[in-house]
C-alpha cells in the first residue's frame, strides 16, 4: 500500500469549526434576570405583602445583613450552622447521585439489551417517578434502619428516572448502518456496547445527568426534612426549624444556599459534558 504515490489531495473545503462562542450578550441575560428578580423581591416584601406578614419575606438587604453576615449567634442561627448543614446535605446528594448513576446506567444497559426486560421495567420506573415520596416515608422508616441510608434512598428514588430514560434512549439511538458495520466485523455484544452504543448515548446521558443532579439535591433536602438524627441536621431540617420559628432571614439564606448547591452541580455537569462531547456533538439551533 505504501508503494504508490498518494492520490490527489482533496480540495473539498473543510467545514469551519463553528462553536457557540461566549459573548457579551451571554452575560447580560442572566444579570438582567437577576436584577428583575431582586426588584420583584423588594416589591413583594415592601409593597405587596401586608405589613404584619412582611417578616415572612425580609427584604434582600435584611437577608444579607442578618442571614449571610451573621456567623453564629447560637441556637443554630447564622451562616456557619447553615453552611455546616448544607455540607451535610451536599454529601448525601453527591453520594446518592453516584449510586443513582451506577444503578440507573446499569439498568439502562440491561433494558437496552432485552426488549422483554425493557417492557417489564418501564411501568415501575414511571410509578417510582410519580410516587409522592412524602407518602412513602413511614414505609421507608419501617423497612430501613439508619437515617443516612434512608436519606440516600430518597435521593435515588427522586433522581433515578431521568438517568435511566435518557441513557436507554441514547443506547438505542445508534444508526442501523453503524450497527451493521459492527455486525460485518463479527463484533461481540460487549464491543458493540462499548464502542458504538455507549459513545452514541453520551449526549443523552449528559442530559439525564444534569437533570438527575438537580433532583439529587432536591432529594437530599426532602430526605433530611423527614429523616433526621438528633445532632446532625441537613439543610432541609435546618430550613424546617427556621420555618417553624419564623426566622425569616435565616430561612431565606438557607433556601438560597440550597438552590445554589443545585445550580453548582448543574453547571458542573454542563462543564463536564462540554469537555467530554463538545468537540464532536453537533448542536442545531436552526439558525
Amino acid at each position, binding site marked *: *500500500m505504501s508503494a504508490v504515490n498518494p492520490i490527489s489531495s482533496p480540495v473539498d473545503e473543510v467545514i469551519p469549526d463553528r462553536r457557540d462562542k461566549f459573548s457579551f450578550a451571554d452575560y447580560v441575560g442572566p444579570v438582567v434576570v437577576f436584577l428583575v428578580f431582586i426588584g420583584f423581591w423588594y416589591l413583594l416584601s415592601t409593597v405587596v405583602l401586608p405589613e404584619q406578614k412582611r417578616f415572612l419575606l425580609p427584604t434582600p438587604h435584611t437577608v444579607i445583613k442578618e442571614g449571610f453576615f451573621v456567623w453564629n449567634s447560637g441556637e443554630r442561627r447564622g451562616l456557619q450552622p447553615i453552611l455546616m448543614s448544607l455540607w451535610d446535605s451536599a454529601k448525601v446528594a453527591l453520594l446518592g447521585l453516584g449510586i443513582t448513576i451506577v444503578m440507573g446506567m446499569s439498568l439502562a444497559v440491561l433494558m437496552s439489551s432485552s426488549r422483554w426486560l425493557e417492557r417489564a421495567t418501564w411501568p415501575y420506573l414511571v410509578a417510582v417517578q410519580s410516587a409522592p415520596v412524602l407518602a412513602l416515608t413511614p414505609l421507608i422508616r419501617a423497612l430501613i434502619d439508619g437515617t443516612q441510608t434512608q436519606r440516600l434512598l430518597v435521593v435515588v428514588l427522586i433522581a433515578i428516572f431521568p438517568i435511566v430514560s435518557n441513557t436507554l434512549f441514547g443506547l438505542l439511538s445508534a444508526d442501523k448502518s453503524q450497527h451493521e458495520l459492527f455486525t460485518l466485523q463479527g463484533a461481540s455484544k460487549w464491543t458493540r456496547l462499548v464502542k458504538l452504543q455507549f459513545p452514541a448515548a453520551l449526549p443523552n446521558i449528559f442530559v439525564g445527568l444534569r437533570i438527575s443532579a438537580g433532583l439529587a439535591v432536591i432529594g437530599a433536602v426532602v430526605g433530611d426534612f423527614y429523616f433526621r438524627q438528633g445532632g446532625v441536621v441537613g439543610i432541609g431540617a435546618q430550613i424546617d426549624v427556621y420555618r417553624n420559628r419564623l426566622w425569616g432571614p435565616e430561612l431565606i439564606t438557607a433556601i438560597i444556599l440550597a438552590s445554589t448547591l443545585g445550580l453548582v452541580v448543574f453547571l458542573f455537569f454542563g462543564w463536564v459534558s462540554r469537555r467530554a462531547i463538545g468537540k464532536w456533538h453537533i448542536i442545531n439551533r436552526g439558525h
Partner: protein
Amino acid sequence: MNNSSSTSPSSTLLSFENVSMTFDDGTKALDNVSFGINASEFVTVVGPSGCGKSTLLRIASNLEANTGGTCSIDRNSIGYVFQDATLMPWRTVARNVELIAELHKLPKAERHQLAAQAIELVGLSGFEDKYPRQLSGGMRMRASLARSLVMKPKVFLFDEPFGALDEITRERLNDELLRLFQHEGFAGLFITHSITEAVYMSTKVLVMSARPGKIIAEFDVPFAYPRNHDLRYEAEFGELCGKISHALRGAHQ
C-alpha cells in the same frame, strides 16, 4: 443460509449461483441471480430502484441470508462501503479509519500504521484529527473508503457510495477508487444509478430487471486501465452507455 465461506477453486472471489431472496413478508427481491467476480474484476450492477441491488450486497456480506441458491465468498475478507459514510461522529478521522482494525483486535502500533497509510492513499493526510462534522460529504466518503481499505479486503462491496455527491466530486472519487482498484487488485461489486459511472469504473456492467431482480443483460467494458477522464466523451463510450440505457429502459417496464 447457503453461504459457504470457502473460495471457489478458480480465482473467483465472489459467486452467486441461482440466488433467490424472498423476505419474511413475502416480498420477492431476487430471482435466480447467477454471476461471479474474479480478482481484478470490477462488476457494476445497475437497475431500477427497489429491484434488489442492495439485497444482493447484503446477501454477499451475510447481513441477510438468501432463501435459495448459493453465494460463495471469503467472508473474512470483505470490505463494505455503505451509501452514507457511517463514520462515528465521536471519533476523529484517524480513529474512524482505525475502527475495523480495532474490531479485529490488531495491536495498536500496527493499527496506527495501517490507518496512516490508508489515510494517505485516499488523500486525507492533514485531516487526521478532524471530526466528521468538520468534513465535507466527499471527504467523509474518503474516510469511509480508507476505513474499509485498512484490512486490505479481497472483495469490495460498494452500495451507491457516491450517490449523494455532486458530479465533480463524484468523478474525482471515481478516479481515486479506480486507482485503488488497480493498486490493490481486489474484486469489486459496485452499485450505482449512473450509467456513465458504471461504464467508467467497470470491467463488466450487469443490468437487473425490476423486482424480482434478475440479471437481464451483461456488457463487457473493453477499455483498458488506467482510464482517463476524457474517456467519458469518446464515441465508443457513449455507444456502450446507449446500449445499457436501452437495456435499462426495458428493465423498467
